[in-house]
């Protein structure tokens, strides 16, 4: 039986990479995002793919999407909590609404999506949740205090939820990527990217498929005895 993978924010970046990878493995994939991209349009109508335009902060719509996915494919085997936003600004200069928006998007939405999926997983007595964290949850960096707070909270959530759901055969882990080549670093100056590469023991940024590979591993049977962990994929920058 094909596995069913639910990925939040699957229209671009790491989410899109994961959608492609899981479909290549023969999985059914469900995803939502705020807007439709050419990547999503190309898959519309495929029997193994389900997408809907939803803002992840709309909790009722997200809950309905999870239940629709479970009805359509019969189960939800893996959740990848991928949606996230990042802005580069020091805390004293941030608008309060932007702080609230980041916490809602990066944290609250992830908790509530995991809650909805965990209910389906409880019924099927199996499942796997992978939260996309960040190296900013582990090391402090100027300009990302709120982002760091949301990602560190996600790692704490991962550990406690693993304790809660482990006895029901549901694993919960997180992947903490370092800087990788995606839309989120496009705005960086070349000098800044060079500086990051120099500080990284492997002397480069990650390729997006290297981050996706960590998610695929944690979602696979090869990781069947791993839960409550944060897998750091950063070329050694935090070691």
């Amino acid at each position, binding site marked *: 039986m094909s596995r069913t993978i639910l990925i939040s924010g699957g229209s671009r970046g790491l989410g899109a990479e994961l959608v492609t990878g899981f479909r290549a493995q023969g999985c059914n994939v469900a995803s939502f995002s705020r807007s439709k991209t050419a990547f999503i349009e190309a898959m519309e109508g495929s029997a193994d793919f389900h997408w809907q335009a939803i803002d992840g902060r709309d909790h009722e719509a997200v809950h309905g999407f999870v239940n629709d996915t479970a009805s359509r494919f019969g189960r939800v085997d893996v959740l990848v909590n991928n949606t996230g936003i990042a802005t580069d600004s020091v805390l004293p200069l941030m608008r309060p609404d932007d702080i609230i928006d980041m916490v809602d998007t990066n944290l609250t939405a992830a908790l509530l999506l995991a809650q909805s999926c965990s*209910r389906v997983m*409880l*019924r099927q007595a199996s499942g796997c949740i992978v939260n996309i964290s960040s190296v900013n949850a582990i090391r402090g960096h100027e300009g990302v205090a709120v982002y760091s707070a949301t990602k560190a909270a996600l790692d704490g959530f991962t550990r406690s939820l693993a304790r*809660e759901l482990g006895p*029901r055969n549901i694993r919960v882990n997180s992947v903490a990527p370092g800087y990788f080549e995606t839309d989120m670093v496009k705005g960086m100056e070349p000098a800044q990217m060079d500086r990051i590469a120099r500080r990284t023991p492997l002397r480069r940024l990650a390729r997006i498929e290297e981050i996706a590979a960590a998610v695929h591993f944690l979602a696979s049977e090869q990781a069947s005895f791993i839960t409550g962990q944060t897998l750091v994929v950063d070329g050694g920058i935090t070691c």
Partner: protein
Amino acid sequence: MLNPCSAADIQTIVHARIRAILEDRGDENIVIAGDDKLNATLGLTSMDLALLVSELEAELGVDPFAKLVSVTAVRSVDDLVAAYRLAFAPAAATPDDGLAEAARRAASRRARMTGG
């Protein structure tokens, strides 16, 4: 009404789901009474209750604990049945029903715990 479930149907469905969970745990000769406490009498854990709520949402299409009722107000089988009846007919709820009393007890406990 969100659904044509009668009050009697809801009780039957809730009791059946509780019985199934207890049977999965290996209990035999299960007799469920309305005043049985979910935890103290039947031995249901928080995660058992989470599974129960999930299964009832899948079967009945409603989750009274999303907005209408605090799950901390539910202690007995009858409390749970009342919560689902409330989800189907919120206008029919009266301040004197058992669930409202349970909600008051839970609020009182929370206030004591927080010093409020």
